[in-house]
């Protein structure tokens, strides 16, 4: 069947069975291999992408349910690796093997989109669906806080008149 999806801002048509998971459309049809296969049953979060701005496990998202949707993958998070999470991930040197990190970052990006001052608990809640086999969780949490800080500071610079209600300092 023909499906239209917009991936990282680019509209694309794919001709695949309707139950084909978005994960395999991305990887094997569109050759966007940044999104990873880990378990196929929604346990590990390595396949996390954004569908219409919300985090979604692409291994459990059929192409038919993503038809006409706007999909963002790790490749589309920023043009040049300048997303605050990508910057923080490097500063903190988060990865060991790195295989889960695209999924971790996509979950974290969805969190920061709605919460630029997350607590540890907020981060745990947003990222508990992402397994890290190497156990880099402390670094991930640290980097999400660091990215949130970068984001808050850049927001302040670009919008100096915004009042900062409830921007309690953390960490």
């Amino acid at each position: 069947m023909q499906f239209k999806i917009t991936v990282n801002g680019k509209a694309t048509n794919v001709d695949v069975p309707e139950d084909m998971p978005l994960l395999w459309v991305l990887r094997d049809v569109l050759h966007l291999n940044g999104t990873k296969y880990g378990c196929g049953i929604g346990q590990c979060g390595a396949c996390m992408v954004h569908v219409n701005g919300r985090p979604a496990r692409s291994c459990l998202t059929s192409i038919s349910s993503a038809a006409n949707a706007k999909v963002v993958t790790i490749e589309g998070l920023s043009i040049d690796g300048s997303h605050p999470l990508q910057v923080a991930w490097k500063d903190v040197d988060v990865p060991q093997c790195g295989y889960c990190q695209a999924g971790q970052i996509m979950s974290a990006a969805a969190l920061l989109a709605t919460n630029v001052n997350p607590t540890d608990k907020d981060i745990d809640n947003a990222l508990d669906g992402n397994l890290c086999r190497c156990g880099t969780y402390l670094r991930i949490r640290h980097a999400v806080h660091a990215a949130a800080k970068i984001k808050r500071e850049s927001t302040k610079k670009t919008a100096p008149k915004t009042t900062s209600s409830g921007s309690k300092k953390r960490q």
Partner: protein
Amino acid sequence: MEINRRSFLQATALTGGGILLSLYPETQAKAQFGPPAKLSPSAFVKIHPDGKVTLMARSPEVGQGAKTMMPMLIAEELDVDWKSVKVEQSDFDPKYGFQFAGGSFGTPGSWEPLRRVGATMRYLLVIAAAQEWVVPTTECFTASGRVFHRPTNKSLGYGELAAKTSALPLPDPKAVPFKDPKDYKIIGRSTAGVDVTQITTGKPIFGIDVTLPNMLYAAYHKCPVFGGKVVSANLEEIKKMYGVRHAFVVEVPDIMGNILPSDPGLESGIAIVADNWWAAQSARKKLNVVWNEGRWANQNSEDFAKRALEMSTQTPARTVKVDGDIDTALQGASKTVEGKYVYPFISHATLEPQNCTAHFKDGKIEIWSTSQVPGSGRSMVAKQLGIPESAVTLYMLRAGGGFGRRLTNDYMVEAAYIAKQVGVPVKLIWSREDDMAHDYYRPGGFQFLKAGLDASGKVVAWRNHYVTYGDGNRYADAADMRPNEFPQRFIANFGLYSSVLPLGIRTGYLRAPGSNAFAFVIQSFIDELAHAAGKDPLAFRLEMLANPAFPSPPGANNPFAGNLDVKRVQGVLELVAEKAGWGKRVLPKGTGMGIAFHFSHSGYFAEVAEVSVSAQKGVKVHKVWVAGDIGSHIINPIAAENMVQGSVVDGLSELMSQEITLKSGRVVQTNYHQHKMARMSQSPARIEVHFLTSENAPTGLGEPALPPILPAIANAIFAATGERIREIPFSKSGYTLE
């Protein structure tokens, strides 16, 4: 490992005026890496005319950080700025010497030779500059990729000297001076992983990401019972399904023996090759296979446990080590303690499932692999396909975790076989379910311990009947226990005995093999003895260490001899106790601290865990303190801390919730929901890592930080609850991670 007399370095000119420095290793460090590599030149260092430097990373990168750490060693002695360095992953080629990731061997195997590569190049660059200026080399020095003449302050960049350097005769590598460690600028400085930006931007750098023109995708369906073979299957129906291009049966000879051989290569199964992997996998779900399940279809975990218990009452089959007279000492003891310890098979469960891409054409094959031991994979592929090893080209891709799983090359041989059948590039991917059902599992085991204390609370006798898997005098892979495993030498009357059960699943090396289970048993039982003696667990251990029953054997300081160095254990124990405030803090009810140490892979680690346990047996590990001694330098501190913290989280998962069981010859667990790893919220909120530096050459860190965390947490749970749990995973006793 050192560059020995028969190894030498050679510089040759690069086109464009650069220079290439080569290392010729004639002998391999360890027999385990296979026969000595065939001699041929290898490039480690390229200095470009503009002064930029390319360094080759020779070992597989599986998350252990070798791709960053090894070039750091070269760059330090070469005396260039890290920012001018570009790192490239080498292909597999015997010219690079050992290309292997395992056994925490990367650091000790590279510390000397890779620094010598850098130092030799710097030595030649200084000679070239001195000749250019007609001055003595003693008036020259290097810094940031330049040679300076001290009296005149003249300088030349390495790039400007590269062409001249390539014409110089090579020095005796032993004559090349190393830097004074106090002048180190790269070793000891935190350096971000060289691939971090590639990882965070989703570049296709992992094995599973390889994409080639006209590539097809394969799934390989094997019998759920090990050694089972295909009798028939509905292949004609499968071939008609969406996207399927090929479907065929792979036949192999029977596997013999009472345990399965290590890395046997190809197993019987059905290959389905399709336009995309999902199509292959979907077709597979419609397979209707008649199997000959073979001789292992009746094995069950429950039967193993029953049989092990029976064996514990019988005379052990083998005596591994005996000191003194255990029976007499036990009879004369004022107190005896017994404990039956049990631990399960577990899976490596690397997040990137096993996969391999291969392209067979005109009698030659190219392979893209994440193997930790590519050399043996190459041999196996050559043998399977009946082609010479020289016809196998192997590219090394970043692996999404190794942990020892990729020390076998089963998936590589499968991909090669399928590629030869279909003639176009093929990417084989195992599903998670394949990975969990066809692993080389950490062998389970049963240890029946009995110890005696004298009136002063000193351990006077220790007896361990170790029941594991094997065949006659052979242990299943990774199931053997060394005769000098602690506490041997520290107890006058000591006996280690073993008996083995036949086993029809494959076992293998999981991060800190042996130690990942033994530390739990030994350090938990020592904790039991400390409490029986009415002594503080730290003080009890320090007393044991201070009073060995036998002197240290020769070679105690040789990192490969496996003999524990008492001073280094004492050092890390005292450091971790100090950092954790051991014995000095008042803890709330339901909270406890546990301590443990272990020596493995040349590394010394002591760890303390602070744990609370709820009334519903919910376990929360609040904080962990780690003290380690892995030698004189922590080469890349930011990566070292990460590795240790990850080891703690990994060990926590092993202790609490991981288990592979067998029913009717099949692995019961299929995916991560049944073989759980700790999630972020369940991991310790803080893991403090401290290193004690000692006058020993640096050793590896992939493994030795893991083993002590299991008993440290187990001992903390005992301190919090009074319950001694002797069987892993603790979930079987009703404990859950919070």
